């Protein structure tokens, strides 16, 4: 092999390592945080459980899985900002408007991050904050999870792949089943609130499903969602 072919060789494949890590960490953190939501919902239940699965297990797992999920979010965001394949600036991580890459759906992720930050920080000081305040804030975790799903479908480069789609569907399915359990566990106290909650969840799920079918899962989404022209991304290198 001559020196000439060496210098003319294409850049090594691992130029895109950060970009691949971003995508992988995004999907894995969605799975972990969905599991965290399910465990959190289960830990609210006082339904009797067997000796093999004590109640502190749900709560302990909920806390630890949540923290691992948040750690992976840091990887997801850090690599997205560090990578120059798409232009995600540090401001885009926290400010949900004005992004350069699929602005609306990147914004959903930023909004989710803001909520996750508040929910995580208030949980760390739960003992000082008091139960009522902490719990009111903790309800926002549902919103963060929903925003994360929309963000994943809207910006995810892999959202349309069969296995990625199955993973996302499994995450949504598990959380919906857990919410169904939460709404029926302890029935019939708070009947009206439970029915309103069920109606709200079903409406949200139907809206997101309709949007997903006509948006991210339909042809031409990368153009419609506001992906910058490839030439611009390459020129920025």
């Amino acid at each position: 092999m001559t020196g000439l072919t060496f210098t003319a060789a294409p850049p090594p494949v691992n130029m895109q390592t950060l970009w691949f890590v971003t995508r992988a960490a995004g999907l894995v953190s969605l799975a972990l945080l969905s599991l965290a939501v399910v465990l959190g919902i289960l830990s609210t239940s006082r339904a009797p459980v067997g000796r093999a699965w004590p109640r502190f297990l749900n709560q302990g797992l909920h806390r630890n899985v949540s923290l691992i999920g948040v750690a992976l979010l840091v990887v997801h965001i850090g690599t997205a900002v560090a990578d120059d394949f798409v232009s995600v600036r540090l401001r885009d991580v926290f400010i949900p408007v004005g992004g350069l890459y699929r602005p609306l759906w990147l914004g959903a992720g930023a909004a989710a991050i803001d909520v996750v930050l508040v929910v995580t920080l208030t949980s760390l000081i739960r003992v000082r904050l008091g139960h009522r305040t902490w719990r009111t804030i903790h309800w926002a975790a549902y919103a963060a999870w929903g925003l994360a799903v929309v963000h994943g479908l809207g910006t995810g480069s892999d959202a349309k792949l069969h296995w990625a789609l199955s993973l996302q569907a499994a995450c949504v399915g598990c959380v919906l089943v857990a919410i169904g359990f939460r709404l029926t566990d302890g029935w019939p106290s708070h009947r009206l609130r439970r029915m309103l909650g069920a109606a709200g969840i079903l409406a949200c799920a139907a809206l997101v499903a309709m949007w997903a079918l006509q948006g991210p899962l339909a042809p031409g989404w990368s153009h419609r969602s506001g992906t910058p022209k490839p030439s611009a991304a390459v020129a920025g290198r």
Partner: protein
Amino acid sequence: MTSRLLVDWVSCDGHGLCAELLPEAIALDEWGFPVVDPRPLASALEPMARRAVAACPTLALVLERI
């Protein structure tokens, strides 16, 4: 420096995590509410007691210095 466990009965919902985590000092009555050993806590149990306090879903378990 010793300490003892107290339950804030207004907050307690009877989730029962405390009795799972600290059976040495907490039992559950027939409705699932904690029955706490009123004696000062053995110092060896304090780390576990702090975990039980942090685990209480309604922050109803209190470790009081006496």
